[in-house]
């Protein structure tokens, strides 16, 4: 049964001012339409250019559910190619990353392609003479994703030609990337430490929404963070607070903390929590770091960079970054009820190793499939995914601190427990879902 395909009005009807219909989470049809329309209309995160430092280096990933490759071309630029042979569709690389040399060679019939995707050679080429091959789709080689932008190392791509250009899409939200990158004394990040991959039996948007859900930590994480606080109370007085306790305990901060920390709303579904302070504000100083930053930027600028304590910055549709701890979470949709969460970490080039150590500890304690904090969250997502099959109520409520004049407002800072960011994400969802329909 198709209810939504080609029906922009029906799709718009799924999102109301203060609630959304459950089909945005549970309907396979809506999911397929997200893959066909919403993801290709959006600027989607692909990867970081430090994953492909040398010519011929590639990294395989997805935009929505489509397989793509990030590759360093011979001219030094990064390209994004559809990871599909133009001959019979074979995926060109199966390893996640590697070096292909000067060209890709399909393992099935040995067609080869330059690292910008263009067709290089076909064995027994004369078999295509007088067949009109030059006019075929196949003759163009591995299709490149045409709209690619490398923003200070972070590579985004947009599959469709329509839609917004990069600057328009992101607007002022790029300031969170700037802050994360500027935390390196030389203004450069490098993917480091390995990626944590965590499978979730829930819709990808539940994860995105949760990044700005500040009314859940003290409740859902009472079991993990609350236990940390309780166990730590029993430590002999004067014991130095371990890094792990510094990381997890603030999840138990009271409502007022989260109300006051603030939320900022930008255009197109982007926004961040932690305008004034955040759960990352009170980490111990890392020896030698501030001195390096002061030497690089001068004291005033160094203080301004490190004084930003943005908590979670959500970039619509499906990533979140944590500037103060150099972490990026990528919520990769697989099916309406299945999402792969990849948590990537970055080294601040030319900063003390201890920062990377803390970043990795954070990632392991919060984002691993073995993480007790992760267990708390996933339990809630899975229960929601199941509960939504109840016919008692087809709507999910996103009404907290709603104000009728909020639509269209941008670059505003509001109460940190508002569900405005979620409403805002769904306004963007409608926009990019129905764009060009």
């Amino acid at each position, binding site marked *: 049964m198709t209810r939504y395909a080609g029906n922009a009005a029906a799709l718009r009807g799924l999102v109301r001012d203060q609630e959304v219909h459950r089909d945005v989470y549970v309907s396979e049809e809506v999911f397929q339409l997200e893959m066909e329309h919403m993801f290709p209309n959006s600027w989607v995160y692909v990867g970081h250019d430090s994953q492909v430092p040398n010519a011929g280096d590639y990294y395989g990933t997805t935009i929505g559910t489509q397989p793509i490759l990030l590759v360093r071309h011979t001219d030094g630029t990064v390209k994004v190619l559809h990871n599909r042979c133009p001959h019979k569709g074979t995926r060109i690389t199966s390893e996640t990353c590697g070096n292909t040399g000067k060209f890709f060679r399909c393992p099935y019939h040995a067609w080869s392609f330059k690292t910008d995707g263009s067709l290089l050679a076909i064995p027994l080429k004369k078999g295509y003479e007088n067949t009109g091959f030059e006019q075929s789709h196949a003759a163009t080689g591995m299709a490149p994703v045409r709209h690619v932008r490398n923003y200070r190392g972070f590579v985004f791509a947009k599959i469709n030609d329509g839609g917004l250009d990069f600057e328009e899409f992101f607007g002022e939200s790029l300031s969170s990337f700037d802050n994360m990158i500027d935390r390196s004394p030389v203004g450069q990040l490098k993917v480091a430490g390995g990626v944590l991959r965590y499978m979730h039996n829930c819709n990808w948007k539940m994860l995105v929404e949760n990044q700005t859900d500040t009314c859940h930590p003290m409740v859902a994480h009472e079991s993990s963070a609350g236990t940390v606080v309780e166990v730590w109370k029993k430590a002999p007085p004067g014991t130095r607070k371990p890094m792990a306790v510094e990381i997890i305990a603030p999840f138990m901060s009271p409502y007022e903390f989260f109300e006051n920390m603030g939320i900022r709303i930008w255009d197109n579904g982007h926004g961040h929590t932690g305008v004034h302070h955040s759960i990352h504000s009170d980490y111990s100083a890392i020896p030698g770091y501030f001195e390096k930053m002061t030497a690089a930027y001068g004291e005033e600028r160094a203080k301004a960079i490190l004084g930003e304590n943005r908590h979670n910055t959500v970039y619509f549709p499906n990533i979140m970054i944590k500037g103060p701890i150099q972490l990026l979470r990528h919520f990769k949709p697989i099916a309406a009820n299945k999402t792969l969460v990849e948590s990537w970490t970055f080294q601040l080039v030319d900063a003390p190793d201890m920062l990377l150590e803390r970043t990795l500890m954070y990632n392991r304690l919060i984002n691993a499939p*073995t993480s007790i904090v992760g267990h708390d969250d996933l339990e809630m997502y899975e229960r929601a995914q199941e509960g939504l099959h109840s016919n008692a109520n087809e709507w999910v409520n996103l009404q907290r601190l709603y104000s009728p004049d909020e639509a269209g407002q941008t670059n505003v800072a509001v109460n940190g427990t508002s569900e405005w960011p979620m409403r805002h994400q769904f306004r963007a969802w409608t926009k990019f879902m129905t764009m060009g329909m």
Partner: protein
Amino acid sequence: MSMVAEAPLKNAVPTDQELIDFVVREARLIDQQRFDEWLDLYADDAFYWMPLEWNQTDPRLTCSLMYEDKLLLSIRVERLKGARTFSQKPKSRCHHVLQTPQVDSRDAAANSYVTWTPMHYVETRLEEQTLYAAWATHHISVENGRLKIKLKRVDLINCDAAFGNIQLFM
């Protein structure tokens, strides 16, 4: 659930059989969810390490699935008992099948013994049951006449795969 309480070592230097029994006992305490007794097998400065990378050598600047000291392990054990630990309502159960542990090295002078144990581990909750294959390496020493784990390293055969929840201990 009865199991003979851990006996002190007969001599200052453990026999191979005593090391083997110790490793088997650790797995049994986990399977029987006797987590306080289990934690007691760990030295105060112990670490439980589950690498993320194949042949990983560094737990500090390479991420791991777990790299936890006794404080973090005790937090896990407390959390499993918590009334509001919703991911454990209902509780997970687990099951170890160990190959006979092999004593890889014994250095009585340094008070350091290392065993290597291939194993299958099953964790289950509600309708889901997941099988993991792994190798456990135990670094053991003698403290006050008892064996203690200084480091337990669990290398999953598919350490780099995407996993769902792993909630108990391998």
